[in-house]
């Protein structure tokens, strides 16, 4: 997917130092606080983070889907070379649907309950591509076939409540694909679905991405969902990307203690039952008053005094595509030193318990 075709060397999307703040009664919430990344055409990026890490706001901020009131947005979003920051809603309209589109988490509330499926798919086709009613209807039928909905003709005349959750999510995907976008955002597309349905939807999204040579940004809290479905993963914490690497590299040689903690806290099927889960103490930072140094330092087992006062910058590893923001990353001498201390301490505790 990262072939060195010259056409793919200019990134499709280039986000630089994007900030998105909300003014609230409590103060300014720094939901996204200086995020930069780029995405090649056809590439898929997974954004992983806990609730409140800023992953959803990031994707909506890129797409320009946030309200105007009490919003502060800064930085640069270059899409196909065009700067999106500062464009009006009217100007964005030519990008939404045809260039970028989004699949939302909850397919029940994202579809119009009083409009037939057919019209909801046909609407963007007529609006953006100027199709007439019968063309739009034929295309809608084809789209439903693409997302593997049986009896598409009958479904066009149904309302959302007549479909199951998985079918509704397929309709959402059909709408998102309708105008042939080059970049698809999927924000927790399978969180509301059962695991068997989740598997099918993820496969469908991936197939369509490959078939249409689309780029994909898959936002999720479930690191398992991105593991098999993305080329690159960015881990977000406290409104920032704290580590980003090609998927396999991230899993095999993560550097950021937060990534390590996140991976270890997930129950895995290969572990025996009653295996003690590793936990992350405390909870995510309050983004009105984020900590002074590294956002993760107050919860980090490897934090040292420097981490509490100074903010680490994103550092490149020997692999230029692998970046992380940490002073004492996994594998550093300080990390090993602290790890040894911690294991000695827990040995002491456990022998103490036996006595």
């Amino acid at each position, binding site marked *: 997917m990262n072939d060195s075709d010259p056409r793919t060397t200019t990134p499709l999307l280039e986000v630089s130092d994007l900030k998105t703040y909300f003014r609230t009664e409590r103060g300014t919430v720094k939901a996204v606080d200086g995020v930069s990344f780029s995405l090649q055409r056809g590439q898929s990026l997974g954004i992983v983070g*806990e*609730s409140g890490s800023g992953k959803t706001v990031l994707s909506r901020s890129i797409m320009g889907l946030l309200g105007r009131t009490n919003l502060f947005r800064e930085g640069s979003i270059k899409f196909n070379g065009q700067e999106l920051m500062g464009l009006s809603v009217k100007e964005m309209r030519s990008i939404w649907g045809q260039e970028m589109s989004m699949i939302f988490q909850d397919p029940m509330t994202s579809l119009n309950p009083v409009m037939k499926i057919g019209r909801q798919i046909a609407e963007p086709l007529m609006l953006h591509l100027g199709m007439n009613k019968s063309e739009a209807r034929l295309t809608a039928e084809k789209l439903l076939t693409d997302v593997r909905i049986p009896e598409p003709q009958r479904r066009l005349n149904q309302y959302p409540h007549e479909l*199951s*959750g*998985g*079918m509704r999510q397929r309709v959402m995907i059909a709408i998102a694909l309708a105008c042939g976008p080059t970049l698809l955002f999927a924000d927790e597309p399978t969180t509301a679905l*059962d*695991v*068997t*349905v*989740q*598997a*099918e939807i*993820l*496969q469908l999204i991936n197939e369509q991405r490959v078939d249409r040579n689309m780029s994909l940004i898959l936002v999720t*809290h*479930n*690191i*398992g*969902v991105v*593991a*098999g*479905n993305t080329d690159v993963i960015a881990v977000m914490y406290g409104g920032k990307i704290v580590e980003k690497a090609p*998927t*396999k590299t991230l*899993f095999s040689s993560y550097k950021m203690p937060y990534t390590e*903690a*996140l*991976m270890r*806290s*997930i*129950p*895995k*099927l290969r*572990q*025996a*039952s*009653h*295996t*003690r*889960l*590793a*936990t*992350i103490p405390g*909870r*995510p930072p309050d983004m009105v008053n984020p900590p002074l140094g590294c956002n993760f330092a107050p919860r980090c087992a490897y934090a040292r005094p420097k981490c509490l006062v100074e903010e680490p910058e994103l550092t490149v590893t020997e692999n230029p595509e692998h970046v992380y923001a940490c002073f004492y990353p996994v594998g550093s001498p300080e990390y090993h030193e602290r790890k040894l201390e911690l294991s000695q301490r827990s040995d002491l505790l456990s022998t103490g318990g036996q006595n």
Partner: protein
Amino acid sequence: MAGTGKAHLRNSPDVLLSVNELVVEFPVARTGLKVNAVSGISFDVIKGETLGIVGESGCGKSTTGRAIMQLPAPTSGSIDFNGQELTTLSKDDMRDARTKIQMIFQDPISSLNPRRKVRDIVLEPLLVWKRGTQEERDILVNKILEDVGIDPQRAAESYPHQFSGGQCQRISIARSLVLDPQMIICDEPVSALDVSVQAQVINLLEDLKAKYGLTLIFIAHDLAVVKSISDRVLVMYLGKMCELASSDDLYARPSHPYTNILVDSIPEPDPEVIYAPTAVMGEPPSPINPPAGCRFNPRCPNVQDRCRVEEPEMREIAPAHFVACHNPLTY
């Protein structure tokens, strides 16, 4: 799978809860039809054990949990808790019995009264049941709050909205513990929580189970979470039982085709594990008009003619591993 039968019930003096041919049906308004939410489930739970119940939405796992509490009372079947038949108890006696079985729900924030201080929420069951003196109650509530990792001082001053989701779930757990129950039914207790917090709550439940000598029923759709906490796991599909085995055994050697598909569908947090889930055909049929024979037959990759007419019964396919399927996967 998706069958009936009782071959898997144990004849042990330590059985705390024994559910027999539990049926729960809900009428559909004005049609004379009914939703077959739970159709003949039997299982037992031994003291100190954790039974996990898994299945997709609509398989009847939550309804089963609530039917044990008689919320609402099941259509038929028996539920024996500690030698007491719950289905025939009077309202007052059932109220009494509920102090022994407590429940924790999925959404921790909406299951706490937003207008009451957290400490009062935890204290209330003791007042309702007039347990102990005021001093004894205070000591107990403080101890339990500390056990679940909530500062009693802060709990006395704060309302539920001032706590995070994970902390609210800890408060729900504290509330379920104050009456010294024998069993706790946890209905999707960690589904609404972030992974880092989810691990904290699971570890807490494991610790409290040991400390308070609890027996747990853990209902969830996340198979990895259920595996982590359970001793035995019951897989349900459309109101029926599919498979029951020890947690490690079930995941290592799933025998029912449905269990196999479920285990296969989980996206593992490991890119080296090639994610190629077995395709399931379609989506679950309506519980208003379930298929004849094995309820899984329309979606089953191993279906045979017999599956469409004859309902499979639970049978022991390996020691302590039960499956309701005519054509199980090789063990």
